[in-house]
């Protein structure tokens, strides 16, 4: 087992949030005496990540994903616990550390609005002190991967959201960070740009061996990119392992899609639950281990035109966890 690149132990973050009642009187009172409420954003989280892994942080809005990511990127000081990333304590923000990481926030930009991306890239070359030859090589490689050579000299304000996100990716990777934090990089992007970015991230990880931690609300991102997911909910780590394992654990059933000849009401074998029914099309739910036997019974007893067995959609499973708050 190689030495982990990221170790997080008992990491905790509590925010003190000022709170007041609505209305003018409360506003005036809060000037003199502020009341605070403690919000535990992250509670006692521990995990370890090996160099080169791609890990997805999932969880509903406000679960503590971004807070955890910000602590690892050194932007937030934890209330308790400890973390080491690439041999550094992130929140000391030593220049040596900052040169080895990068963070992309889907809702923030580091591109300057009025000048072409190339100008920003050149500034980043200086800030990160990338030698000129290495810079050119990295830039060429990234630009080719993202197919964006025509964007380099247009002012950023003339670029679309997807084009801008491509630029953000390049900007984040010019100094070849060993650890990459991606906070919802595909936020608001159309399906084809999302796919392109996913392929890019996977390819970058494969070529550079960089560790990637990604948060996303698009399960497609996570399913495609992350062999391992960490599920955080109400600041607590609920699950750490492969996405498939999470689905299996939560949804120990399969879906059977069935199309029958004619819309007659047929008696179904026991152990099947009807989820949808419309004009002879049925969606049934069956326990995972009974599925083969039940499928055989359906095929032999009913006038089946078409039959398909599927895993429940990941989104539905995730929704179930978010609603129930447990695994």
């Amino acid at each position, binding site marked *: 087992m190689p030495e982990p690149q990221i170790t997080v132990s008992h990491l905790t973050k509590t*925010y003190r949030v000022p709170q007041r009642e609505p209305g003018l009187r409360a506003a005036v009172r809060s000037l003199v005496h502020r009341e605070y409420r403690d919000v535990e954003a992250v509670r006692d989280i521990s995990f370890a990540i090996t160099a080169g892994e791609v890990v997805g942080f999932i969880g509903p809005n406000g679960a503590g994903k971004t807070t955890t990511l910000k602590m690892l990127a050194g932007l937030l*000081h934890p209330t308790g616990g400890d973390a080491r990333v690439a041999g550094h304590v992130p929140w000391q923000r030593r*220049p040596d550390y900052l040169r080895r990481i990068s963070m992309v926030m889907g809702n*923030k930009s580091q591109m*300057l*609005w009025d000048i072409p991306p190339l100008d920003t890239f050149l*500034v980043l070359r200086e*800030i990160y*002190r990338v030698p000129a030859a290495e810079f050119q090589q990295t830039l060429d490689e990234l630009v080719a991967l993202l197919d964006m050579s025509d964007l380099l000299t247009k002012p950023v304000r003339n670029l679309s959201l997807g084009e801008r996100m491509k630029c953000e990716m390049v900007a984040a990777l010019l100094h070849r960070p060993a650890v990459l934090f991606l906070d919802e990089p595909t936020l608001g992007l159309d399906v084809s740009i999302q796919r392109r970015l996913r392929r890019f991230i996977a390819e970058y990880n494969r070529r550079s061996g960089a560790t990637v931690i990604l948060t996303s609300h698009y399960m497609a991102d996570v399913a495609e990119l992350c062999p391992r997911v960490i599920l955080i909910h109400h600041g607590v780590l609920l699950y750490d392992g492969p996405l498939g394992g999470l689905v299996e654990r939560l949804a120990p059933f399969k879906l059977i899609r069935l199309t029958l000849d004619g819309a007659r009401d047929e008696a179904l074998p026991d152990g099947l639950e009807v989820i949808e029914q419309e004009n002879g099309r049925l969606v049934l739910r069956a326990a995972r281990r009974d599925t083969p036997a039940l499928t055989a019974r359906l095929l032999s007893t009913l006038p089946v035109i078409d039959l398909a067995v599927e895993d429940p959609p990941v989104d539905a499973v995730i929704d179930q966890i978010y609603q129930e708050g447990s695994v």
Partner: protein
Amino acid sequence: MNHRGGWALIRRTWASWMQYRGFFFLLAFGWMIPPLVYLFVWSTAAGGATVGGFSRGEFVAYYLVLILVNQLTYAQTNWIVGDVIRGGGMSQWLLYPLAPAYHVLSSELAGKVVYMIFVVPVTAVLAITLKPELHASLADVLAFVPALIFAWMLRFLWGYWLALLAFWSTRADALLAVQDALVFLLAGQVAPVALLPGVLGSAAEMLPFRYMVGFPVEVLTGQVSGTELATGFALQVGWLAVALGLTWILWRRGVRHYAAVGG
């Protein structure tokens, strides 16, 4: 310190600002108006005689120098610091292996260059038409240079520590408006500080605001010399030390606070 990165940042900011220089020219024009108004008020009042020892031509010289000094020392950057803190842009600043002060300085220096492209020619044209009387000795010019640099540093840092209060309070930039008002009143804009009456005049001499604009103008126009000059520099440097100390304390505490509450 990563100076190369800082210098690159300054060049980029300048390039970006030149993209909309028209806007900055208009801003600079707006900032020229109040001193211009007072230039005409006082030079008309002086007429053929003198007011408080100033002749018409001396008023013109005083205010033309003031327009330049006011523009060179005005720290427009401080107005964005609050937005950067509130909007979460500070996170990006903190992620770079570069002192965040460079971001502020780059905007300061880039701004100065852009404004001067407009203000210097306009002031030159005014000087040709309005015939100022400037009696500056070599000693005055030599004293003016450090007085101007300290004035910029003081005005910038004074606004910066006020702007840094945005780490704790959401509308700290209201304090910048107060600073601007006090500079307008007490730094020699409404009238040269020497002409301010009684208590107001003494207050202006003690408070930091005169040393942000008025003092270097007075130095170049030959109004201060000897002990007055020494006292002036002492007060200017003293206030500068106060501003530096406050900036240092507030920056350290502010970043700690930011890391505690999140951006």
